[in-house]
């Protein structure tokens, strides 16, 4: 059964919306949002500020019924986006249908961010597999993104909306593949790497290391990274085993890699809402709030976490 707006169905619908520039974006998404608003359905749109402006202008008075989020803020770290949708869907669960637009993939993202944004898109299928009447459309700008990125959208979305029509994606990963341990190799860093083995939070030693490595970085951001390392060490690290900590600079950001951590079984760990009270998910959740990017790689017997903090 379709909902009143003709967009949302009974189940979770997750589609990539491929568009060609801002005008195409507005002309295709505007009418969908207008219909949903007119049908009284909650709409959350998480896109960049420029397109928020354009779409608001198109919608006129209807724009006041839309919840707008600047994706470049909340979604800078893609791991913070699923909690946003969780909250939105939960708060409007009694609604006839809810509509969301989320654009976590944009031109100018760093390669590591794009990898995590792709992972986020895959995890959405797992996170909302049981959601009812939730339609989530993820815009991809074909004019500014390269072909490889667009191709990957077909791996993470069960269906794709092209400028000329809509079709199912036969390449979309199944839930089992998404839920399997994510162990995509992380690129080996270049430049000078400083290293330390820590047990527990080891705040003093970590602080000293970060000062050595990121002396020019804002003190508050170094403290944020110290707190993130402590959260991961306490919540994810085994009580006996030491955690290997490596720190380096990468494109102006300070990166800390923690290896020798306990494996993380839950692929959605750190993306819960509200924050879990304990366990690996809590440590990763805290790190996700503190850092510009968090990369988790896990196998059956160990995990690695990379924490990125920009100046």
């Amino acid at each position, binding site marked *: 059964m379709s909902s009143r707006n003709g967009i949302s169905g009974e189940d979770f619908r997750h589609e990539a919306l491929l568009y060609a520039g801002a005008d195409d974006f507005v002309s295709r998404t505007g009418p969908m949002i207008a219909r949903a608003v007119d049908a009284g359905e909650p709409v959350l749109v998480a896109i960049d500020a420029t397109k928020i402006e354009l779409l608001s202008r198109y919608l006129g008075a209807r724009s006041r019924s839309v919840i707008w989020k600047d994706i470049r803020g909340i979604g800078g770290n893609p791991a913070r986006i699923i909690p946003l949708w969780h909250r939105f869907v939960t708060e409007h669960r009694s609604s006839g249908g809810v509509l969301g637009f989320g654009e976590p993939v944009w031109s100018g993202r760093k390669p590591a961010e794009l990898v995590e944004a792709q992972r986020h898109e895959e995890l959405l299928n797992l996170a909302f597999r049981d959601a009812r009447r939730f339609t989530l459309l993820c815009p991809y700008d074909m004019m500014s993104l390269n072909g490889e990125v667009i191709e990957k959208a077909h791996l993470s979305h069960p269906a794709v909306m092209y400028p000329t029509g809509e079709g199912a994606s036969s390449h979309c990963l199944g839930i089992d593949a998404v839920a399997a341990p994510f162990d995509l190799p992380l690129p080996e860093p270049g430049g000078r790497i400083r290293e330390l083995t820590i047990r527990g939070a080891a705040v003093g030693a970590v602080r000293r290391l970060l000062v050595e490595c990121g002396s020019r970085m804002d003190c*508050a951001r170094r403290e944020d990274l110290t707190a993130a390392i402590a959260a991961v060490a306490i919540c994810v690290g085994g009580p006996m085993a030491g955690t290997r900590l490596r720190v380096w600079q990468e494109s102006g950001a300070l990166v800390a890699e923690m290896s020798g951590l306990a494996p993380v079984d839950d692929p959605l760990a750190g993306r819960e809402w509200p924050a879990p009270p304990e366990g690996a998910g809590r440590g990763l959740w805290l790190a996700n709030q503190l850092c510009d990017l968090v990369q988790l790689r896990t196998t059956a017997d160990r995990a690695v976490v990379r924490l990125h903090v920009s100046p």
Partner: protein
Amino acid sequence: LFDSSHIKKRAGGGRENHAQGSAIGGGGAEVSGRHVQRLTTGSGLSGSSGTERLLPGEPVDSDQFDEVQHWVIVYEELTAFVRQAERDLSQMLNRYARRLEHWRRRHDELAGPLRAGEHRNRRPR
């Protein structure tokens, strides 16, 4: 445990500020993508304390109630984490301090009072 002065809770907006549909960051929040470098006292937030470093994605003075709630929770969780770590360390400290007291007493019983720091130079007999 940490210098947590920069993660003070500062969200003080109330329900009267809730307006679904207000554009993100109304009143001068980020529009360029990266989080704002310094917090300027926000008109919509009581209790803001001047210049403070923000977390990634933290809007300066959002008037969206759900966002205000979100940041209250984020900072509650962060302060709870640091407080818990402090409590854990404090418990550890108390235990070690009690054991130290025990062994100092035993030392006094066997060899007389130990002056502060003296144990560092002393070899077991």
